[in-house]
């Protein structure tokens, strides 16, 4: 090898990865030199599975793992990145094959399924003695509690709110809504925002993926409906049908949504707003940082969901969890790593970088979250936020996507009425109560 090449290939790759981390985030916090610590001989590494929707997250998590590895010498954390679309099935198959990672990042609606497989480490007793236990909001603990057992850390939390183009509202003379705005005001704004000659639509409705149903359900709740009543499926009640009818009509009759709605998933609604095709959409705080890049921080705000005819509104609250597995090889190490990720600095950086909210009150109260208009709609929605009713049964997790969404799309395109959809959907839910 040429002597001028002082770096080995491995060193070069590592340096490039480190440079990528710094370049990707442009944060002073990550600019410390990466020094690889020594490891205790024979220590079992901790395998941490992380699903990767975007390069920024990859860089962030890699950086966090390196920081943890620098902070202690007992064992090493190795991050295993998997595409988000495959994260659930990869975890389930690894559990079935008795080779799960030690811990992972998963959405709360998957934890019930893993618990049903008897795979999840019960953290209840450890959490009781954990130093930040009381700092986590009770509703955040609810998202990770199954049958009375705390199964995960709520790493970050979020709820749903409305993104609103402030610059366009000014341009079209639309009065910014009050915080307690109503369905009628929501529809009126959507109509005023719709400018077909400019290829602009008032509302970017979601038609693809689990959350297409969740957003519709929030409107059903605002009309007084419930998914479960007295332990029985009540999702096809009169209130639910009327609420859903109103919501679907935004697309079907009012034509305030783009024609791509039936196949618009998360990426579709976020990009639709970011590219200026839509002027409102419903999502959690997770796309607020992206929208700052897309449309610019001064050009949008977030609002709570509107109040329905039943004089109520609901925002579904959920968490991205840190979950450990019973058959992990280094369970103590997994706990220590997860607890470290919940500490002030790592937790703050993770949430802030990704635009999600901390489950810990002391962090959520920091001005970076509490005073940022991009988060205002979500923080103000906390008083009426509830844990998603679809977390009630583990069997509902996958069915929402595979059976619920195609039915919902049929309702969107007019092949089913709201009543027919909800009757069929109620059957799917009733069959999969576990």
């Amino acid at each position, binding site marked *: 090898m040429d002597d001028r090449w002082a770096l080995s290939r491995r060193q070069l790759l590592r340096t490039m990865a480190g440079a990528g981390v710094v370049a990707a985030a442009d944060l002073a916090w990550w600019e410390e030199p990466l020094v690889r610590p020594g490891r205790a001989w024979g220590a079992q590494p901790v395998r941490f599975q992380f699903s990767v929707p975007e390069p920024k997250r990859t860089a962030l998590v890699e950086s966090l793992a390196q920081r943890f590895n620098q902070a202690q010498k007992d064992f090493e954390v190795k991050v295993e990145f998997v595409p988000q679309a*495959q994260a659930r099935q990869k975890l389930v198959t690894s559990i079935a094959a008795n080779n799960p990672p030690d811990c992972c990042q998963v959405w709360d609606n998957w934890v019930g399924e893993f618990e049903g497989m008897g795979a999840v480490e019960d953290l209840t007793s450890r959490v009781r003695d954990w130093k930040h236990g009381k700092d986590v909001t009770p509703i955040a603990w609810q998202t990770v509690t199954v049958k009375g057992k705390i199964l995960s850390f709520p790493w970050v939390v979020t709820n749903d709110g409305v993104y609103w183009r402030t610059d366009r509202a000014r341009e079209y003379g639309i009065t910014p809504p009050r915080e307690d705005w109503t369905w009628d005001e929501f529809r009126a704004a959507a109509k005023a925002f719709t400018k077909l000659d400019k290829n602009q639509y008032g509302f970017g409705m979601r038609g693809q993926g689990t959350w297409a149903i969740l957003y519709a359900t929030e409107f059903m709740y605002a009309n007084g409906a419930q998914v479960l009543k007295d332990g029985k499926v009540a999702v096809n009640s009169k209130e639910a049908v009327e609420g859903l009818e109103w919501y679907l009509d935004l697309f079907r009759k009012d034509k305030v949504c783009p024609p791509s709605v039936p196949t618009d998933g998360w990426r579709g609604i976020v990009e639709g707003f970011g590219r200026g095709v839509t002027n409102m959409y419903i999502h959690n705080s997770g796309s607020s940082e992206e929208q700052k890049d897309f449309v610019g921080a001064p050009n949008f705000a977030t609002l709570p969901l509107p109040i329905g005819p039943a004089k109520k509104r609901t925002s579904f609250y959920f968490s991205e969890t840190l979950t450990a597995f019973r058959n992990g090889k280094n369970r103590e190490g997994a706990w220590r790593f997860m607890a470290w990720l919940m500490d002030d600095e790592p937790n703050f950086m993770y949430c802030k970088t990704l635009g999600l909210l901390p489950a810990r009150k002391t962090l959520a109260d920091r001005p970076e979250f509490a005073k940022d208009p991009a988060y205002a709609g979500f923080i103000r929605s906390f008083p009426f936020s509830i844990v998603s009713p679809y977390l009630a049964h583990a069997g509902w997790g996958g069915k929402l996507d595979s059976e619920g969404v195609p039915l919902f799309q049929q309702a969107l395109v007019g092949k089913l009425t709201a009543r027919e959809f909800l009757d069929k959907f109620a059957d799917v839910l009733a069959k999969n109560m576990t």
Partner: protein
Amino acid sequence: MAPSDATVAVALPRSLSSRRARELMTGYLYLVPVAIALGGTIVVPILKAMHMSLFNYVLIKPQEYGFVGLGNYTRLLGDETFWLTLWNSFVWVFGSVSLQFLGGFAAALLLHQSFRGRAVVRTVTLLPWIVPGVVVALVWEWLYQPNYGVINDVLLRTGVLRDRVAWLSDPGLAMPAVIATNVWRGVPFFAIMLLAGLQAIPEDLYEAARVDGAPVTRRFWHITLPLLRPIIIVATATRVIWTFNYADLIFVMTGGGPANATQITSTYTLLMAYANLDFGYAATLSVVLLVIMLVFTVLYLRVTRGIESVT
């Protein structure tokens, strides 16, 4: 003369196997690696899938695992979505292959002519076939994007459309849209196959026909088409099998939606396996797909056997 000194022929001990048998054995031994490879990668998984289809095997419900006999097959018969996907598969295969064939034939006839830059045109014609299926799907998904896709933009600017069309979000248009993409991708396959066939037809036949005063249509009908028949059948049959199992394009472009409008049996199988993690039912769907393909393959072999004897 005393026979004592005479040389007596002594029979050599016979080997246990004849030469013919040893040759056969050697031949079979050469086949062993292939047999192991094919057995391990094709036969065993097929048998495993058949076995799995007889069980209630939902990965997230290990406690419910158990033998259900033909239970999954009974479920399949009553599954409306399955029958819809089977119909969609027929539309998908028939629509794709017939249009690919027509486009490919037209392209082959054009490319068979002599003109300046023919080599370049032939190479360009091949390009869609070279691009990986997933890339094709992503590119076309963007082209079809109703709000900022190129297709709508061009059609609006040229006055062909007055409103934006949701190509992949409208249940009535989604299947034609994905078929059009598949046609774009598959035309080169037919073009190259048929071009090779055209080049193999002796020029004398056309010469003789011209001398006899046969017009171009009769030359095409009585010379080109019959002599291309073997290639047409082989290429079409191969393409039918590929297209029936080809899930990438639809999976990426529409995910089977909207409202199952583009859900074909192979994407439905993927959905059952990887979204529902219902391996038992997914295996049942796979076995049914296998049976359908076997029936088609038997028909195909019968037809091609006839062709081989002719050629």
